[in-house]
């Protein structure tokens, strides 16, 4: 009897977390290079008491994982020469105080020493494993589609684009940065677009319909809890009444 309540509860807790995921996707609708996430649900079968038991296995719901939609976000033209959008696969490699991290956020800038850094101030790595610095008299910085950076002083280096065997297993750490223990491999055909920024790939209509779905499912799960509660109440009053 209690199982009906608990099964309903397992559904509701999973729904709550799915709602949080949807809320996070919608909150990040305008976040540079944000990748939308969705929950994966699984059936958890509760084993029966004994082999010959007349009980049927009960199935609870559990959220066992999340999947990231890795499609490119739309390109937004900003006109800023230090904004780059990565088309197709690849991530920029940035040097942070806690080790190398990866991002698709191509909003770059120069810091006070002229070093090419992300908006958090972390230096961007080149294919040679170095960082890039510019002086005041170099003029316009041009970033070619393969990442080659050219100024009035000639070629200055090539911005590294790397990829990983399993992009789903990248750990998001906030600030558009990802970490992983996997070994990076350089992207065979890197493609960057200067003067643009990759937007978020959140599809608002999909998220809104998912949200309605979650809300209504939550309500129906609560109906189940309600019904189980009513049954128990009736049992108490009727059995109690025969005394």
């Amino acid at each position, binding site marked *: 009897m209690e199982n009906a309540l608990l099964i309903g509860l397992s559904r509701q807790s999973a729904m709550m977390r799915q709602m949080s995921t949807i809320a*996070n996707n919608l*909150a990040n609708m305008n*976040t540079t290079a944000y990748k939308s996430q969705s929950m994966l649900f699984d059936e958890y079968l509760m084993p029966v008491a004994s082999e010959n038991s007349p009980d049927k296995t009960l199935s609870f719901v559990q959220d066992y994982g999340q999947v990231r939609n890795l499609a490119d976000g739309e390109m937004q033209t900003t006109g800023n020469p230090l904004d780059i959008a990565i088309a197709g696969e690849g991530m920029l490699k940035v040097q942070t105080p806690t080790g190398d991290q990866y991002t698709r956020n191509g909003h770059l800038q120069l810091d006070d020493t002229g070093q090419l850094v992300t908006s958090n101030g972390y230096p961007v790595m080149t294919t040679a494993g170095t960082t890039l610095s510019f002086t005041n008299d170099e003029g316009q910085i041009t970033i070619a589609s393969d990442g080659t950076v050219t100024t009035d002083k000639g070629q200055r280096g090539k911005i590294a684009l790397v990829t990983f065997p399993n992009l789903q297993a990248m750990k998001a750490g906030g600030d558009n940065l990802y970490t992983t223990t996997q070994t990076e491999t350089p992207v065979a055909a890197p493609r960057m677009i200067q003067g643009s920024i990759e937007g978020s790939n959140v599809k608002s209509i999909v998220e809104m319909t998912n949200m309605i779905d979650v809300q209504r499912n939550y309500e129906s799960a609560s109906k189940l809890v309600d019904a189980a509660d009513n049954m128990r109440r009736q049992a108490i009053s009727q059995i109690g009444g025969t005394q």
Partner: protein
Amino acid sequence: MQSLSIAATGMMAQQLNVEVISNNIANMSTTGFKRQRAEFQDLLYQNLRRVGTNSSDSGTIVPSGVQIGLGVKTGSVYRIMTQGDMNNTGGKLDMAVQGRGYFRIQMPSGTDAYTRAGNFQRSPTGQIVTSDGYTVAPGITIPPEATDITISQDGQVQATIPGQTAPQIVGQLELSNFQNEGGLDPQGDNLFIETAASGAPTTGAPASTGFGTLQQGFLETSNVNAVTEISDLITAQRAYEMNAKVITASDEMMSVTSNLK
């Protein structure tokens, strides 16, 4: 319920986005104004099931965990330093910088400020000053009897004096450059001041290496593009509404729970 506070971060971010866009639109006709853009980043993640952890003692790992993001935050509001259009005003002391460089302005407090707005005037003593009356470095005085002023592309100021055949050189304008222009601190009145993030200025004559040229009789307009701003405004407004919908939905879910009993 987390989704309430997550949606609240989304609404706050979009509110800031609308503020940035409205400031851009308000400054559409401001001389030398550079449009700003809000850049957003995802906030922290809560690991409910950590990715890459062992799922058995035989070495299998969790291929994709459950990471609940906790919303959005503003990464930066940065200036897009592209060249604005050139507006021909014909003013003798109107100058536009074509390329990199800022005019250095000596503030009454003795500090320096920097500007791209070259709508200068003459003070009662004949000095070249901004529209607020602050001296444009290095401080050039035009003789009161001068009938015409010519400013060359490399910043040389020449005055035509009645009775003299050749124009008289009265001074040389200078420009300042910064490693990181985005790090300049805006002060209003089209003025910026140096910060630790911008780096120290390097000063040089216009048209020298790394510096832009001066165009007399022109003013640099703002680089705000109305179409971009309006379409950004629409996106921001709709994103705000959708985040508000998340709050309504979460509220209804909570009310369902509280009505159970």
